[in-house]
C-alpha cells in the first residue's frame, strides 16, 4: 500500500498541513515546518518514505525553477541592470573567497588539491529556495539585505554553468571517471566544440525573442478561449519548456526560467502568470523542503556525530565570516549584514546535484560525498533556526546598541509627533507635517532606509517602535500624537497595545489595511483608523463618474457622502460582526460584503444634498397651480 501514489501524496500533504501551521504558530517559519515534516515522515521517524525521498527531491527541485521564474516576473530588466554591480561584485566575491578559504582548509586536512577545489566551489553555493522563501516570509526582500542576498544567489545560479564544465577537468584521470563522464553527456556535448557556444547563445536568444514577441500572441489566443486551466497549462508549458531547453544545452534551468520571467516582467500577463505558477511553486518548494528533511541520514550522523557537526558548524561559521566581510565591504549596515550573513551561510541544494555529479565523474569519492550530503542537509535545516536566533538574540541586542548611541539627540528633539514606519505611507504623512513646520520623530526598522533618510536631513531613527523603551527615548512621553504607519498588521496591533499600556495620553492615528484589520483596531479601542485604500478608491470612483459625464462637484459630493456612510457602516457592523474564529475566512468575507452592500442600498444617510434639490418645491408649486 505504501507504494501507491495517493498514499504518498496523502502522507506528504498531511505532514505539511500539520507541521507548517504548528511551526508558524511557534514563530519558526514555514521552511522549518516543512523540514520538520520531512524528518517526521522520513526513514528516521515514522518511515512512511524511504530512499525514494532523494528522487522526490530531484523532482521537487523544479519548485526552485518555478520560484526563479516568479522572481524574474517581479524584476523588470531595468532593475536587474541596476543590480548588476551587486550581482557581479558581491556574488563574485562570495564564490571566489569562499571557494579559496574552504579549499585551503580542505588542503590542511590533507585532501588532494583538485578535490579541495571542487569541495570549495560546491560549498560556496547557498540555498536559493530556503533563503528567498524565508526572506519573503519575513518581508525582508526589499531591504538591502534581501536585495544583496538575491544578487548573490543569482550569481551562484550563473556560476553553476562554468562549474559543471570545470569538474570533469578536475577529475582524477582514472578510466572509471572517463566512463562516468561519458555516461552523463548532455546532448550539446555531442556537437562539435565550435558549435557549443553558438547553441548556448542561440537558446538564450530564443528565450528572449520568444518571450518578447511570441508569447504575448500565444497568451492572447489562450486568454480568448476563456478557459482558466488552459492558461495555467500554457504558463506551465512555458516554464517546463524553458527548463527542458536549458537542460539540453547544459545551462541551469533555474537561470533560464529566471531569464524568461524577466523578459515577461513588462508583459500585461505578468500577474496572471504569477498567480497561476505560484501555487505549483509553493507546493513543489514545500515538497522539496520535506524531501530535504527526509533525506537527512540520521544513522550516518549517529555514527560520526562529532565529525558531521564539526563540519556543519565549521563550514557555516566559515561561510558566515566571508559573507559578513563582503557585506561590510559593500557598506551594509550591521543589522542588514547580519541578516545577509545568517541567511546565506548554509550550503545550497545545488550541492546535492553537484555531489552526485562529482561522484559519477569520480571527482570526489563516495564516502566523502555521503558525509557531505548529510552535512549539507543539516546546514539547510539549521538555516531557519540561525535566522531566527539572529533575529531574536543579535538584532534585538543591536537595537539596544543603536539606541544608546542615538539617545541624546532623540531626547533633544521632543517632537509633538512620532511616526512609526517610514515607507510610502508614513513618509507622505511625515513630509506633509514637515512642510507645515510640525516636528516629527520617525522610527523605522529598515536601517538602510533610515541612513538614507538621515542623509536627506530627516529626523529618522532606527528601531522597532513596538518596544516601549525605544518609544520612551523617542519622546513618546512628551509627544501628543503617534502615527502608526507600519505595513505589518500584527506589528501594528502590538504597537497599539504598547502605546496604550505605557503612553495612555498619546493620540494614536493608525493605518489599517482593510475592513477586517480596521475591526481589529476598533476592538483594540482605536478611534482614528485610516483604511489605506478607501480614499484612493473613492477618488477613482469620482473620476470614473466624471468621465461618464457626471458633474465633477456632484461626483465629489457623492464620494464624500459614500465615505461618511461607509465609515458609519463600519462602526455599526463591527458591533454585530461574527466573532466566531472558526467561521472560514472566505465565508466571512462574502457575508461581510453582503452586509455592506445591503447597508449601501438601504441607508438613509446616502440621501444626497436635498437642500440643493428642488423636487419637493416643484411638486408643491405644481399642486398649488392644480388647486
Amino acid at each position: 500500500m505504501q507504494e501507491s501514489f495517493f498514499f504518498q501524496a496523502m502522507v506528504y500533504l498531511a505532514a505539511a498541513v500539520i507541521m507548517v501551521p504548528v511551526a508558524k504558530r511557534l514563530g519558526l517559519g514555514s521552511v522549518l515546518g516543512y523540514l520538520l515534516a520531512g524528518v517526521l515522515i522520513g526513514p528516521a521517524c515514522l518511515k512512511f518514505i524511504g530512499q525514494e525521498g532523494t528522487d522526490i527531491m530531484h523532482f521537487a527541485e523544479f519548485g526552485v525553477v518555478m520560484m526563479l521564474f516568479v522572481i524574474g516576473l517581479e524584476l523588470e530588466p531595468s532593475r536587474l541592470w541596476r543590480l548588476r554591480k551587486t550581482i557581479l561584485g558581491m556574488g563574485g566575491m562570495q564564490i571566489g573567497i569562499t571557494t579559496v578559504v574552504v579549499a585551503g582548509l580542505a588542503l590542511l586536512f590533507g585532501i588532494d588539491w583538485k578535490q579541495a577545489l571542487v569541495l570549495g566551489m560546491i560549498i560556496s553555493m547557498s540555498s536559493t529556495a530556503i533563503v528567498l522563501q524565508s526572506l519573503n516570509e519575513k518581508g525582508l526582500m526589499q531591504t538591502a539585505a534581501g536585495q544583496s542576498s538575491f544578487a548573490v544567489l543569482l550569481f551562484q545560479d550563473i556560476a553553476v554553468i562554468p562549474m559543471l564544465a570545470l569538474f570533469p577537468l578536475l577529475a582524477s584521470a582514472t578510466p572509471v571517471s572517463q566512463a562516468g563522464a561519458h555516461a552523463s553527456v548532455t546532448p550539446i556535448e555531442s556537437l562539435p566544440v565550435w558549435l557549443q557556444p553558438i547553441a548556448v547563445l542561440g537558446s538564450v536568444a530564443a528565450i528572449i525573442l520568444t518571450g518578447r514577441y511570441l508569447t504575448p500572441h500565444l497568451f492572447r489566443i489562450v486568454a480568448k478561449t476563456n478557459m482558466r486551466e488552459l492558461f495555467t497549462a500554457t504558463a506551465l508549458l512555458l516554464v517546463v519548456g524553458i527548463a527542458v531547453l536549458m537542460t539540453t544545452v547544459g545551462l541551469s534551468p533555474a537561470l533560464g526560467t529566471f531569464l524568461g520571467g524577466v523578459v515577461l516582467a513588462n508583459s500585461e500577463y505578468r500577474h496572471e502568470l504569477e498567480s497561476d505558477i505560484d501555487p505549483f511553486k509553493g507546493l513543489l518548494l514545500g515538497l522539496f523542503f520535506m524531501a530535504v528533511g527526509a533525506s537527512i541520514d540520521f544513522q550516518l550522523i549517529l555514527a560520526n556525530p562529532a565529525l558531521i557537526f564539526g563540519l556543519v558548524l565549521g563550514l557555516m561559521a566559515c561561510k558566515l565570516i566571508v559573507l559578513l566581510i563582503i557585506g561590510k565591504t559593500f557598506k551594509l549596515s550591521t543589522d542588514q549584514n547580519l541578516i545577509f550573513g545568517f541567511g546565506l551561510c548554509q550550503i545550497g541544494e545545488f550541492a546535492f546535484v553537484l555531489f552526485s555529479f562529482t561522484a559519477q565523474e569520480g571527482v570526489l569519492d563516495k564516502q566523502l560525498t555521503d558525509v557531505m550530503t548529510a552535512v549539507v542537509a543539516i546546514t539547510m535545516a539549521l538555516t531557519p533556526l540561525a535566522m531566527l536566533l539572529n533575529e531574536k538574540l543579535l538584532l534585538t541586542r543591536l537595537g539596544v546598541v543603536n539606541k544608546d548611541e542615538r539617545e541624546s539627540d532623540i531626547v533633544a528633539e521632543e517632537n509633538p509627533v512620532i511616526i512609526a514606519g517610514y515607507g510610502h505611507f508614513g513618509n507622505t504623512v511625515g513630509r506633509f507635517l514637515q512642510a507645515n513646520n510640525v516636528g516629527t520623530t520617525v522610527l523605522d526598522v529598515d536601517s538602510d532606509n533610515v541612513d538614507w533618510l538621515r542623509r536627506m536631513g530627516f529626523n529618522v531613527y532606527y528601531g522597532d517602535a513596538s518596544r516601549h523603551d525605544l518609544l520612551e527615548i523617542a519622546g513618546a512621553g512628551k509627544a501628543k500624537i503617534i502615527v502608526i504607519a507600519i505595513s505589518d498588521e500584527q506589528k501594528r496591533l502590538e504597537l497599539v497595545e504598547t502605546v496604550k499600556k505605557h503612553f495612555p495620553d498619546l493620540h494614536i492615528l493608525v493605518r489599517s489595511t482593510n475592513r477586517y484589520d480596521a475591526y481589529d483596531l476598533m476592538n483594540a479601542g482605536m478611534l482614528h483608523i485610516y483604511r489605506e485604500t478607501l480614499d484612493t478608491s473613492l477618488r477613482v470612483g469620482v473620476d470614473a463618474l466624471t468621465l461618464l459625464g457626471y458633474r465633477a462637484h456632484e461626483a465629489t459630493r457623492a464620494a464624500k457622502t459614500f465615505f461618511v456612510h461607509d465609515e458609519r457602516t463600519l462602526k455599526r457592523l463591527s458591533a454585530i460582526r461574527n466573532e466566531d474564529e472558526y467561521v472560514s475566512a472566505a465565508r466571512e468575507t462574502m457575508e461581510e460584503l453582503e452586509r455592506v452592500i445591503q447597508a449601501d442600498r438601504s441607508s438613509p444617510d446616502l440621501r444626497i444634498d436635498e437642500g440643493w434639490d428642488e423636487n419637493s418645491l416643484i411638486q408643491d408649486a405644481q399642486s398649488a397651480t392644480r388647486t
Partner: protein
Amino acid sequence: MAKVLIQFAHPILSKSRVHKALIQSCANLNDVTINDLYERYPDMYIDVDREQALLRAHDIIVFQHPFYWYSSPAIIKQWFDLVLEHNWAYGSKGNALVGKKMFNVISCGGSREAYGPTGTNRYPINQFLLPFEQTARLCKMTYLPPFVIHATHRLTPDQLIDYGTQFRTLLAALAAERIDFQHVEPLDYMNDLVASLANQPV
C-alpha cells in the same frame, strides 16, 4: 431661559483678532452654544441632520462672521442651501423654525460712515443683510438688527476687550430673556441696545 446658538464662521481664525476676542469672551456662558462651522466641516461637507437638531434645540440663532464682500464666508451660504430644507424650514409643511429669533454678528474693515450714502460702500449694512433678513422671514423667524464691529483694522487692544464685554453682556441678556424685542426691532444695530443693558441690574 432662552437658548442661544452661535453659528460661527471664519476661514482663518488664527489671523482674526476681533473674532478671537469675541469667541473668547462668550466661552462658557450658560445656555450659549458655539458651533464653529469651519472647524466642524473643514471640507464644507455639512452634517444636515446634526445642524437641524441644533436649530431645534435653540431659540436664538446668531450668525457670527466677517463681512466678506458684503456678505458671509462661503460656508454660511452652503449651510443655508443645505440645512434649511424645503418643508422643514420653509414651505407649506416647513415649521421647524417658527418663532425663533435670528441676527448677524459681523466685523468689517470700513467705518460706520463708509456704509452711509456718501461713503465708499454707499448703502447701510442693514441693506446688505437683506438676504439674511428675508431668509429669516421665509422661515417664520424674527430677524433682529445686527451687532456690528466697524473699522476692525484700527481697533486698539482695549477696544477689542470692550467689544468682547459688550458681546458677552448682550448674549447673557438674550439668554436670560431680559430683552424686550419690541424695543430692539426698530434699532439699526444691536450695539445701540448694549449701552442701555449696561445700566440695567443684572
